């Protein structure tokens, strides 16, 4: 971003005929352009491309061809769908609370788009490098929950309200393991800034967090899939159970906005996973290339980043094509009684390991922190130690789950025996 700003700032500064007030700097203009492109081009494109891709991939999984009439490979199918959504009549149910009914979908879409502000796509190219980066993502997600609740409540429909209640229960339940795994990352990276987190994943600093923390990765990925409400956690719109959840009564583009929100959010989760665990734009030659030519480095970084995002998006669709849906009680049990305790344990174990590799620092608060006993092993040593610790956590958890399963099975058998006697 810095190089891009400087480059564009040079162009912009020579154009005094812009007639803008002096305190509006070039950087603000560049940011605005970037932001508007992000919101008005990337978001609808994400929806159009992803729906097409999803239908194609799921069709292949189910041994079908998928959309193939409109345009080459059915590529225009999604465009046709978008046009259809624009031209459909928009009904508002009688007795609905009109204002919240109309704000709800917009709020959900805005909340999904806002996530992109902190995702670094290439060296130096990021919307804004907030020092609270990953916490900002959690905060923005809260607005989506509010939008869903508004939509469900205002529709004056029993299914919509039930769907909204279910959706909110699910979203808040899975927010906890997601937040805890984000804290785990913040402990290891020593920062919440997404840019710093990507920097820490260079091979010099110890490599991808996927290698160092597979358990954290699973916790984060599964809970974010639940946050987006995609299969197998797609109870929010379980068509066969609560017709379509909180957006039953929506039609036309308002329905489309919910779809945009879902796909934009899914893409954001993929991008976030790539950023936090797959090293973001890191890849062979990016750093060297950036040193010599920032633009080429940025392009290469984009390519690596999009490849990683593509892999995650494919996994998301693979999930949808193959996994059956959870039942609501199973879903909430899985979130609260499995993910949350594991995330808490994982956080403490990770923090302990990180302390062992702590570099010596002077805090400026009147005391200094001496280096940890294993600090000399550096980033790679920490990665290996974290991996071992994570595998240990996974092993302990599997033991606990097995004991728990055995106990509940014995209980069930006893209950059956009691009935038979």
């Amino acid at each position, binding site marked *: 971003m810095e190089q891009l700003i400087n480059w564009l700032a040079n162009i912009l500064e020579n154009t005094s005929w812009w007639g803008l007030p002096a*305190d509006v700097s070039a950087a603000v203009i560049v940011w605005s352009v970037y932001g508007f492109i992000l919101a008005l081009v990337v978001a609808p494109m994400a929806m159009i491309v992803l729906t097409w891709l999803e239908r194609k991939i799921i069709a292949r999984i189910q041994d079908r061809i998928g959309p193939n009439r409109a345009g080459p490979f059915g590529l225009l199918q999604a465009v046709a769908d978008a046009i259809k959504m624009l031209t459909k009549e928009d009904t508002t149910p009688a007795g609905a*609370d009109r204002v*919240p009914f109309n704000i709800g979908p917009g709020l959900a879409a805005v909340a999904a788009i806002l996530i992109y502000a902190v995702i670094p796509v290439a060296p130096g190219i990021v919307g804004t490098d*907030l*020092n*609270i980066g990953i*916490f*900002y993502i*959690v*905060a*923005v*997600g*809260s*607005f989506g*929950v*509010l939008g869903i*609740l*508004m939509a469900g*409540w205002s529709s004056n429909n029993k299914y919509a*309200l039930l769907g909204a*209640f279910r959706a*909110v229960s699910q979203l*808040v339940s899975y*927010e906890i393991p997601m937040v805890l795994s984000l804290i785990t990352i913040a402990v290891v990276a020593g920062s*919440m800034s997404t840019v710093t987190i990507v920097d820490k994943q260079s091979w010099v600093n110890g490599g991808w967090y996927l290698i160092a923390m597979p358990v954290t990765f699973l916790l984060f990925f599964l809970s974010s899939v639940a946050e987006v409400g995609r299969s197998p956690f797609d109870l929010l719109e379980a068509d066969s159970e609560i017709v379509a959840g909180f957006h039953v009564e929506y039609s036309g583009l308002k329905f489309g906005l919910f779809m945009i929100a879902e796909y934009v959010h899914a893409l954001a989760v993929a991008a976030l996973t790539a950023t936090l665990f797959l090293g973001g734009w890191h890849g062979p030659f990016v750093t060297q290339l950036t040193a010599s030519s920032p633009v080429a480095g940025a392009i290469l970084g984009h390519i690596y980043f999009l490849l990683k995002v593509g892999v995650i998006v494919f996994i998301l669709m693979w999930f949808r094509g193959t996994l059956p849906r959870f039942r609501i009680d199973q879903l909430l049990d899985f979130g609260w009684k499995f993910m949350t305790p594991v995330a808490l344990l994982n956080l403490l174990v990770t923090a302990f390991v990180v302390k062992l590799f702590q570099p010596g620092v002077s*805090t400026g*608060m009147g005391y200094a922190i001496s280096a940890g006993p294993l600090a000399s092993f550096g980033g790679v040593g920490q990665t290996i130690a974290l991996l071992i610790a994570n595998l240990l956590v996974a092993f302990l958890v599997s033991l606990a789950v097995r004991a728990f399963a055995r106990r509940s099975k014995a209980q069930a058998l006893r209950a059956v025996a009691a009935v038979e006697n």
Partner: protein
Amino acid sequence: MAEQIVFFIFTILVLGGGIGIISTKNLYYSALFLSMTLSGMAGYFVLLNAGFLAAVQVVVYVGAIAILILFAIMLSRRMMTSSEPQTNRQTWLAAIVSPLLFIAILVLVLQVNWPVSSAAPTGDALILLGMSFLGSYVIPFEVISVLLLVALVGAIILARDTHTDTGREQ
């Protein structure tokens, strides 16, 4: 200048939400206006260089407390259909006292010449926050966790339907 414009926008959110809360009869709208006020507050915190606090505001207030209030409203829906006025007998008294109090506080507070420091913030406030939580404020930090535990226990005991336990639910 730009900052002042942003301040006014957030003020419209905050005070507009507040006025909405006291003027609407519909409790559901009050809760939505509350979320509006709380979002505006987050904007204030950003203006005051407290980005972390802004995120806390949104996560805890909009993401948790407002949701909790909306849930509670939906759970006790029946009384919202009553067409009675939503205000009690003290309304006129309160309508007189509140503006007077507002003026009194303002007159008092604005007389004081606060020792404003013009120093720009240095260092990462976030690290400072973390160090303070586990440094000078470590006792409140631990007490908060006990408080949350007690609140959870109390709220679960209160909110649980005691009828379900004894199987008397219709």
